[in-house]
């Protein structure tokens, strides 16, 4: 994959760029042109953002390429896991039950 990307037409970049554009416009359209509730909108555009971040890591940042490709994936997944545990975990623990009142 990497040798391909180096010489020939940078197909993955173009595809990645197009998908990114689609995702961005989709988010803008949902936020501005629909009548969904704020909460639903936030969830949808939030998910689109995370999706696009992942896409760019793979398509533009060459996360999976090179000799450290696997390691990069493990590191990022682990980082995301830790962040989720710390942030979401804390919010959940501190805002439920008696603690919330």
């Amino acid at each position, binding site marked *: 994959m990497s040798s391909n990307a180096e010489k020939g037409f940078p197909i993955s970049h173009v595809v990645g760029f197009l998908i990114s554009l689609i995702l961005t416009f989709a988010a803008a359209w949902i936020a501005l042109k629909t009548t969904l509730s704020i909460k639903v909108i936030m969830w949808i555009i939030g998910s689109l953002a995370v999706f696009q971040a992942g896409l760019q890591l793979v398509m533009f940042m060459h996360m999976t390429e090179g000799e450290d490709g696997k390691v990069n994936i493990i590191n990022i997944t*682990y980082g995301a896991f*830790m962040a989720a*545990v*710390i942030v979401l*975990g*804390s919010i*959940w*623990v*501190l805002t*439920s*039950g*008696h*603690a919330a009142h």
Partner: protein
Amino acid sequence: MNIKWDEFFVTGDPLILGAQISIVLTMVGIIALLTYLKRWTWLWREWLTTVDHKRIGIMYILSGVVMFFRGGIDGLMMKAQTAVPENEFLNAQHYNEVFTTHGVIMILFMAMPLLIGIMNVIIPLQIGARDVAFPQLNALSFWLFFSGAMLFNISFVIGGSPDAGWTSYFPMAGKEFSPSIGNNYYAIAIQIAGIGTLISGINFIVTILKMRTKGMTLMKMPMFSWTTLITSIIIVAAFPIFTVALALMTFDRLFGAHFFTVSGGGMDMLWANLFWLWGHPEVYIVVLPAFGIFSEIVSTFSRKRLFGYTSMVIAVAGIAFLSMLVWVHHFYTMGSGPAVNSVFSLTTMLIAVPTGIKMFNWLFTMRKGRINFSTPMLWTLAFIPCFLIGGTTGVMLAMAAADFQYHNTLFLVAHFHYTLIPGVVFAVFAALYYWWPKMFGHKLNEKIGKWHFWLFVIGFNFTFFPMFFLGLDGAVRRSFTYSAESGYGPLFLLSAIGSAVLAIGFAMFVYNIYWSIRHADRNISSDPWDARTLEWATASPVQDYNFAKLPEVKTLDAFWHMKKDNEGLTIEDKEIKDIHMPNNSGIPFFMGVVFTVAGFFLVFEWYIPAAIASLGIFAGLIIRSFDYNDGHHIHAEDVRKVERKWRNRKGEVHKHVG
């Protein structure tokens, strides 16, 4: 500069006055001794500026033993105070300070440096490397740890000790309820030491991933290297949480922020939450290396390959993963509601599964082995039942509903001492007996070692077993006294007597070191236990460059197979090449000093001096960035000389698998 000078030194307590005098006398004594023996340059050249992982390890171990002494005295003082009802040896305030410093010192300045010290000495040898990945950074780790430890330790004579528990919960630990500067020491000293630990974690991950010798794939790596790798990963994951929490605490205490005060729009339980997000992984940081140590010892002294190596690796990784998901079990009583408490009960109980796997692996390793009951093995054998008690009571505490009864009682205190003492202290003793010849070229005495072992283990059980029952009867933790009518008297007395026995056990250990340094046989083989891993494939004590020729690994227990197949044990003169080694550096020591000074000013809230002192930190960083010195070579001729000396028979490692 609003600290009153008359409050600078802690006064008015004869115990503390005694301590102050003895500290001054000890310092004068050390300085006089060094000057008399003309050892200053030796100290600077061989130790203070060293970047050699073995020497750094030994400095860590020495500091850890001294800190164990300090923390142990704290423990004994508490046991003396509660030995009889309504005792007046320590007052409430003093008791608070003592359990706080005891907890912090035991975990952060005893357990951590002893384990990191052992890792430092052993890991590069075990993976067949000549040093850690970043030797100078390693020295920096040590000096930052040492700086934090010293800063924390002077608190009881200068300025007053922290007194809000090793957990330092808010609002108690905030300025409003703890206005004295004692708790500033907590925030700042631990922060400095924590940076050192984080750097160690990174260093060991890189060392283990990148510096293994030829042929040593991850799954051929000795168990202690595995547990060190996983421990380092947890360090890198968890310590930053504490760094942030301590920084927030510092803002609250020093600069009037309100992250943790409810009236200021903050949240006090956020501290508890962040503390345990680090704190629970921390207890695995201290116990996993111990599991590795015991694995090495069980297999060496049963003369068998470790049973279920792969399952052991998976179990360690599983524990590491789960350890991030259980922190709420420390504050079920906060009342997060049934959903949260149930989830955390489950994750906590799940940890018992991988831990159980490890227990059975050790037992099966011993099965049908020819067990050699030397001291390291005795500690390992005692660890298994004692830790089992700690683990079982842990599962009891894991049940959120039941925990409402146990919470904050001596039952909990007994539980965690039953995990920490077998899991850390027994392991460290086992490791020191086992690897002592590697570090110093002689064994510790076996006979004194057995006295040490029996007194310590019996004393430990008598100290802490009664506390389970005291706790079930309702005796609370962190309470400096109790009434005679409570009926707690007899068990408390038993426990106090136990702690005296335990203390005698520790004294035997110190005596053993003294005795062995003076009298032990120096004429021992470089492989005195007939061991299995690479650290034994080189001289004892280990030469600067570790291995004249880096060993090549084909299987697990590489050295055992090298001995069995008589392969790779000899070395020919022409195989010896020049060896590149890093140079010593004074920068890490310098950084330790400026961090201590800046930290000290910050503790006293003297901001301008603190700012000036911290310029020293930047100076250190800048000097280091322009330091292009990249080491020196040890010439092949010198290497040959050293090698000839320890390889007595035609360049052969002495012992053979028997």
